[in-house]
């Protein structure tokens, strides 16, 4: 089913996406040097977004980013626009990034068909997922914004939704989950819950 009621700006970003991660040596280099990584969505539901960020720790701001998206026209345009917003000027402060909402991304794009709004929600979550990865790595647990309501670990503010998405996107072992969390998972109860999710998903 087609829907061509997209703004010129959405189409422009779709046809000429900015800042996406290329599957080449440069892309691999970016991943290696990225400070954090986030991913949301899963192929069962359709859209999947991945975001890698470089962070200026001293000034607490995002200085570079790359992304990959599996999804429709709107999903691709949203991630592209988000990357432009994050890199604008000398980069977005982490506090501003935390305040970013799906609505603000849509405003930048002009408008989005109502049934595509979930793409902006996903884009925002991808960003938050990457920031959470950074916060967990740097042990700033108080700054984490949980993705989804169902907490799996209080301290890490890790949710069922986050872990399920990772599994559906290919994480097969506890170690791979831990790598996505960004820090050691010490709570034995959390460990047990993740093992169970790995078994059942």
């Amino acid at each position, binding site marked *: *089913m*087609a*829907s*061509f009621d997209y703004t010129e700006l959405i*189409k422009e970003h*779709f*046809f000429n*996406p900015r800042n*996406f991660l*290329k*599957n080449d040596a440069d892309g691999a280099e970016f991943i290696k040097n990225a400070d954090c990584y986030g*991913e949301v969505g899963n*192929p*069962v*539901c*359709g*859209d*999947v977004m*991945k975001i890698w960020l470089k962070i200026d720790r001293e000034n607490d701001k995002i200085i570079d980013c790359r992304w*990959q*998206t*599996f*999804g*429709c*026209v*709107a*999903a*691709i345009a949203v991630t592209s626009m988000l990357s432009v917003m994050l890199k604008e000027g000398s980069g977005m402060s982490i506090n501003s990034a935390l305040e970013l909402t799906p609505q603000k991304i849509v405003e930048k794009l002009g408008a989005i068909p*109502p*049934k*595509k*709004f*979930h793409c902006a929600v996903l884009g925002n979550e991808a960003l938050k997922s990457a920031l959470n990865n950074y916060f967990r790595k740097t042990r700033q647990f108080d700054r984490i914004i949980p993705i989804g309501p169902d907490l799996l670990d209080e301290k890490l503010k890790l949710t069922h939704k986050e872990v399920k998405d990772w599994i559906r*996107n290919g994480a097969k072992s506890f170690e791979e989950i831990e790598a996505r969390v960004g820090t050691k998972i010490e709570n034995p109860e959390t460990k047990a819950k993740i093992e169970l999710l790995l078994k059942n998903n």
Partner: protein
Amino acid sequence: MEKELYLDYAATTPVRKEVLKEMLPYFEKSFGNPSSAHSKGMEGLKAIEEARKRVAKILNCDPKEIIFTSGGTESVNLAIKGFAFANKDKGNVIITQKTEHSAVLNTCKWLESQGFKVIYLDVDEFGLVDLEKLEKAITNQTILVSIMYANNEIGTIQPIEEIAKICKTRGVAFHTDACQAAGYLDLDVQKLGVDMLTLNGSKIYGPKGVGLLFVKSGIALTPLIHGGGQELGFRSGTENVPGIVGLAKALELCCEEKDKEVKRLIKLRDYFVGKVLAEIPEVKLNGHPTKRLPNNINLSFAGIEGEALLTLLNEKGIFVSTGSACSSKSLEESHVLKAIGLPILYSHGSIRISMGRYTKKADLDYVLSVLKESVKKLRGLSPFAKNG
């Protein structure tokens, strides 16, 4: 956009000049209401009765067995609901399959809310219905089987004659939605052995807003539209005279040209599919390799999404359709691709290319080059795709 290349003939076709020419007098000059007793009315009446005869000749049935409707959806509704209501004393079970057009599926779903029971048969990986399972599903409560002739998305052709035999042996009525079949497959209802058959004008270079239902004499139907008792009381409302005339002409033309066109399109289809499978990695042809409509090409590309691909093709003037749809929460895969068990990474990235009488080999070569480029571009953005 320099080029315009329409490859969505399974959605609808343009009206042929010959068809339009026959229709035109009935808009202005011979506009009379066929129910009127005067000469102007007679002109309309004669036109639709003549059209009925022409259609009956093609379907090899009696003109009285043809009911003109507003299109495929109405015909399907009349066949299934009309039959269910008229025969509810005999039983309340209807059998269909999971890959039917939404006209059939949603009609059946509504009938479930009215106390009928519907069995939705599975299909195999090619989209074919299992005849043994169908036979087993029929009980003394079954009144009707509705299985489409050829699938609109993946083009799979069902063994209609065999299904008709099973239904006949078991004393169950059989309806087939033949909207996609006209122009490509045999429409002889005696040979097919069907009790009801749905056709419409908009897929055969005829007008939109007109269709027909063949109903074998002796089959009882409850009309859905009540009024002046037109169409032998099965379908009230002043007849769409130009539409009916156009439908008859379009059907005649596409059946006359059938054999030649089938040969030509199968050659084009197999050429194009062969090229795509050889030149683009991680792609699947959906549907049956040979038991498929000559004009249908349904492809799935791993790791990308259909609407995005459709949009890139559209930008190059190529008009195709996609089975995946974006709902309010997520992408939704097509019910047909789900029924054939296509892996999820493939089913989101599917497009249907449906050819028609104006499609040429050079067009397909252009599509191939744009398709290769577009798939590569989207895979370059996708976290799931290897470069292709």
